[in-house]
């Protein structure tokens, strides 16, 4: 969970940067995790990427496809 969260947020930061934005300009995040048991494991990594004024966020426990443990989407300012 920690590794997947780190990879996704790293990729998200790269994508935003490629578009001239950054994680600091994210306003809303949806986090889908396979089990809410992993909530704190996800949070501990997530926290590193959004150290101040973090985005609004919703976290839900769901069944994910492809064996992944976590999926994250966001809305950001350009």
């Amino acid at each position: 969970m920690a590794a997947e969260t780190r990879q996704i947020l790293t990729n998200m930061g790269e994508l935003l940067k490629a578009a001239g934005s950054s994680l600091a300009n994210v306003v809303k995040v949806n986090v889908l995790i396979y089990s809410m048991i992993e909530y704190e494991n996800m949070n501990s990594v997530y926290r590193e990427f959004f150290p101040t004024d973090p985005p609004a966020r919703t976290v839900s426990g769901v069944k994910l496809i492809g064996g992944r443990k976590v999926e994250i989407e966001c809305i950001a300012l350009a």
Partner: protein
Amino acid sequence: MTDRLPRSVIEPKNPKLNVSRNANVPHSPGIRVGDYIFLSGMGPVDPVTGGRNLGPIAEQIRQTLRNMAHMLESAGSGLDRIVKITVVLADSADYDEMNRVWREFFPVDPAGSHHLRLAAQQR
């Protein structure tokens, strides 16, 4: 690139409803950008105790929407200005009851919404 809209954190006037601060979780209650407000996922938190107000689904939905109204009003907005909501129910059997309560809060021109059934939601 054009000038970026200012991005600011919004918080409920009632500190008991500031779940993200009280539970020290890494999200803000809401973010404002320009004329738009984005709220974090909200639940039936008791505005007096700050604890979870668990009970019948109708009451949980009423409490959640009252809290949402408080959040929006704290930022100078309101339920009548919502454009999109996502509802997450632990049990889809509660769908009709949710809709019944929904109409109490959104009598005219309700927001766009969609509903997810998430059986694994319980923590």
